């Protein structure tokens, strides 16, 4: 299993963060990182730290907000939540990814005419 760990493709981390926040609601950095690892079934090689610069740039773009809060085990943590602009962006990017991955799959599968 360790051998198949994938690198995070550039640009996908933002999408994963937005999707996470949109399904789970406000979450702190650790929670987001864990969620991404769980969804990917631990196949993704994610340095959890890298989500912080990503969170910062998402916030700068106005797609997410942050607020200090208290975690379930009573620790001060910064909670991130998606904004309306973020949701719009998410829809657009989801669509975009879907199309891209379809193209890639079609491209990689042996095509009928080719055979």
């Amino acid at each position, binding site marked *: 299993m360790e051998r198949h760990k994938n690198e995070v493709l550039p640009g996908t981390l933002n999408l994963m963060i937005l999707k996470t926040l949109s399904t789970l609601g406000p979450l702190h950095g650790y929670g987001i*990182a864990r969620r991404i690892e769980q969804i990917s079934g631990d196949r993704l090689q994610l340095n959890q*730290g*890298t989500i912080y*610069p990503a969170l*910062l740039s998402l916030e*700068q*773009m106005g797609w997410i907000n942050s607020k200090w809060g208290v*975690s379930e085990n009573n*620790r*001060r943590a910064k909670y991130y939540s998606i904004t309306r602009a973020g949701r719009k962006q998410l829809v657009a990017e989801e669509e975009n990814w879907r199309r891209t991955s379809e193209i890639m799959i079609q491209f990689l599968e042996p095509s009928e005419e080719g055979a």
Partner: protein
Amino acid sequence: MTRLRIFFHRLLGLFLKRKLERELEEEIRSHLEIQIEDNLRQGMSPEDARRAAQIRFGGVEQVKEAYRDKSRLGWIETLWQDLRYGARILWTNPGFTLTAMLTLALGIGANTVIFSIINAVWLRPLPYPDPDRLIVVRETKLPETDDSQVSPAAFLAWQKQNTVFAPLEAITVRFFNLTDEINPERVRGMPSTHGFLPMVGVRLMIGRYFLPEEDRPGHNRVVIIGYNLWQRRFGGDLNILGQTITLDDQLYTVIGVMAPTTGLRFEDTDVWTPLAITAEQAQQYDSRYLFPCGRLKPGVTLEEARMEMSLIASNLAKQYPDSNTGWNVRLLSLLDYAANHTKAQLALMVSAVAFVLLIACANVANLLMARAAARQKEIVIRAALGAGRWRIVRQLLTESLLLALAGGVVGAALANWGVKILMATSMMGDYHLRVIDLSLDGRMLAFNLAVVLLTGCIVGIVPALQASRPNMNEMLKDAGRGSTSGRRQQFMRNALVVIEVAMSVTLLIGAGLMIRSFINLQQVDPGFNPDNVRTIAFSLSKEKYRGKDQQAAFYTQLIERVAALPGVQVAGAACAVPFTDGWWGDFEEGLKLLNQGFRIEGRASYDLGQEPHAYYSSVSPDYFKAIGIPLLRGRHFTARDTKGAPRVAIINNKMAKQFFPDEDPIGKRILLTNGDEVYREIVGVAGDVKSDGLDRETPAQIYEPYLQQPFPFMTLVLRANGDPSGLNEAIRAEILKLDREQPVVGIMMLDQSVRNWRSTRWLRSLGLLLGIFAAVAVGLAAVGLYGVMSYVVTRRTQEIGLRMALGAQPSDALMLIMRHGARLTFCGAAVGLLGAWAMMRLLASGLYGVSATDPLTFMGVSLLLISVALLACYLPARRATKVDPIVALRSE
């Protein structure tokens, strides 16, 4: 949009740097702690739990670094760093910094002065609503006149027929005698059609504009008075409205007061009256004295207006061929019209100050290069520590920009002062029709900033690129041997000095030519002797002195009385005196009078409008003696040339030669076409007189005795013995004794009038300004040369020491350095002479009595510059002779 958002976030990040870092640290800490707790819950030992958490998280420092990159604007931080570093470096070298800064301040300051004047004269919009739509209409008849006033008949035709202006109005100029029991005064009036003031948007302080019916003859006895007159004469009395004042013996009701002018000066008009065109004037096509101005209708372009107005003009030319053949219209915006006379002068100034700035830049660039050479070690170390070339260039450029900025600030202060001096010396005098507003505006700020940035870059880029050339080998070699180091650098520095010298030569030649023209102009013989001559211009009330006899009697009496005053040698009078603005009532009369058509008895007659013209004056018998015009042949006018006696005239030498080349003009008879059609017998030939500027050709001139042709406006001409005190008061008293309602305004010294005549003053102010700029340029070039030669001496100290150790004399060392300096100087002078030779042709039209490639000026300037330059080389060269071979060689 998002970009901008990010930019602001990051800009904010700059100031919240600490807070952001603290928060990130806290976030990471809580992240790790939660992870550790999770791990513990899964049964790991505390040790393992911590380690696993750290591994999952990745490198904390990398994350922080990545976070920082995103949270801030890197370039701003670098800039800030560079600025601090640059400021520190400049601070630690006060000598260098001060020199460079002052040099740039001179250059930038000079440019700011000229720009602020251009801004005030050309660029600032006039303070009226939609000033661009205000169009002045002039008449032209090429090639003779390219800019003339307009005849009333043509104006009325245009006003009626055009569809492009709404409205088209007109003004003219007229002097009035403003009289009351106490204080007679001569005031400048501007008769205008009723719509002119509201069309332009001139504001009134109180009262109202003219009504449409008020610019008809007979209804026009209303007046709007100027703000200055209101303050001066009526003490700002708000009850002035409805009162009457007496202008040329007519009562006018005051209906308004002008607000202080901020736009056009309108020649400092005191009274505005309605311009009432009489039925007779409405038929006049050949006397041109109106200044029409209109407002373009919305949507009409200037080009469309031009086409339509031309069409109307060409129809008029067909309809009235006698007066209008060849006449066309010229349309230009009011602003252009107001700035018209200044263009050539300001363009010249712009090039001069641009030269000064470039020289200043070359100088500072040279200084920077010298310093970059001294800082090579620092730069090599920076490069070795991994600073990229761009990074080093940026650092050095920041420094030069800082210098330029400091120079800009000091320059602005200098400029502020310079502009004040310039305005105070009235150098810009009457070249502008606008009220000059020099207050700071956005345009000036932008200009200054642009000049500063440009200067900083020009000055810094070459030295920065050179210094950052990362050729360590060469640097190390150079640093070690220090003989004739950095060839390329030395070449650049030499080139800069050559350019400086060349530009100073060009500028100096420009100034030299102007100054020579001015001197030439001073030496022109005006044809009379203006020393100790006073002129007093005034005009008589047409009501009181209705008949010509009365007018003549007044002047006869006045001349007699004034001639009897102590200290007065001889007194005369004339209706037009050279270099003296006549004080005839209105423009129309003046134009007709000064330029008279004539016919010679027995010669073929000319077509209408084609006869020759002469400059005319009606004079008293002693006028020629009083002003000092010699009589070449024939006789003077005498007291016997009266109304009843045969009509006589005196002509000038020029006219005699031109129209009577092979015969004696005396006894021939001429007729003036503008007036009574009577032949006058020529009784004398007088010397030629310059009448309208020393640089003008003398026209043909005709004089008549005033007893035969009196005018209600004459200028008294008095020749005194020296400058007796109290004479002016005595003259005034005599005039008031004759008529206590007669305003006497200016008693002028004729020699001053000649000296300050427009064209003379133009050349003088231009020559002086160019001279100042050229002097600055030469000074800067000398400093530059001095700097480079000092550097050369320093670099070649060892070589000189070696040569001396081998037996060279101090004089050989001197020659070595002087040769180097002389080479640069001669190269620069040669380039400069070539440049001047090419450029001065542009100046030719402004010169007088000297060709644009005057060899004397070219040689003189070269000699002057070469001696200054060699002196600048000599000082460092002398240091070379003091080189002690032992010290020099040991210093290795």
